[in-house]
């Protein structure tokens, strides 16, 4: 299936859940609404003809214009096609629906996005920090992050 067909099918089925798209980029991507990612992704996973059973990567992004986002890279082992999904949210309301029920690998990837960017995934079974310490102040990969001076009595900067 070409990205254009995937986009048309999704638009026909979900309407407002599918936002903008850029299908002539090097990796064609389709934008999603942040509170409806679960149903779209479940459709993409289960439906015959799509069968996106492999989530290669789920990464958080801090777009410098006040928006945070999550980028999903999907691949299908049967149909051998791939697509990229993007879900954006604001800094004040950093909530995106979790897709960990669809792909098991999304569990830890979403924990990493939460740890590094502060994006809260609704419906995640175990959302806690995975890389930094549990009491680490702030979310490191945000653009406005400042390295703390002391952490647990240890001086952090050089």
């Amino acid at each position, binding site marked *: 299936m070409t990205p254009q067909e995937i986009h048309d099918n999704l638009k026909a089925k979900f309407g407002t859940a599918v936002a903008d798209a850029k299908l002539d980029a090097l990796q064609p991507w389709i934008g999603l609404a942040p509170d409806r990612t679960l149903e779209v992704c479940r459709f993409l996973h289960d439906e*015959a003809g799509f069968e996106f059973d492999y989530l290669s990567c789920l990464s958080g992004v801090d777009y410098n214009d006040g928006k945070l986002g999550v980028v999903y890279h999907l691949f299908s082992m049967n149909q051998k096609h791939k697509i990229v999904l993007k879900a954006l949210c604001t800094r004040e309301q950093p909530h995106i629906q979790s897709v960990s029920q669809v792909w098991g690998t999304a569990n830890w990837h979403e924990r990493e996005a939460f740890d590094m960017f502060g994006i809260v995934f609704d419906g995640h079974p175990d959302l806690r920090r995975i890389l930094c310490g549990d009491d680490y102040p702030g979310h490191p990969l945000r653009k406005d992050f400042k390295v703390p001076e002391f952490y647990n009595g240890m001086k952090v900067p050089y």
Partner: protein
Amino acid sequence: MLTEFGKVLIFFILGAVFVAGGLIVSWLLRPHKPYPAKLTSYECGEEPIGHAWVRFNVRFYVLALVFLIFEVEIIFLFPWALVYRELGLFAFLEMAVFLLILWVGYAYVWVKGDLNWDKPEPKVPTLSRQFQQTGRPEPARI
């Protein structure tokens, strides 16, 4: 002059002196600086949860007990084996009676299953959700 038993006593005393001497010298020479962080239980660097004294499985006790009984039997067999030739048939029959009594106990322990090494029940992992793939077989449950 020392009797034979006296020589054994010297042997025991020297053994005790060796052990005690080693322990005392190392007690004199080693540093001893305990402080609370050093005395915590080892838990790979984490804060220890609970204490380090765990319950042992009872199979160790059963094995030690059975071993002790048959070890004492073997100790009794050794001097008998040395004078067996001179004493003739009577010694053989007497030892046979002794062994027979112990074999009855051995058979009882065997049949009752006390010689089995109890392994803890293995926990088999199961998949928590069903895979639903079109056109692909379901993966095997472990």
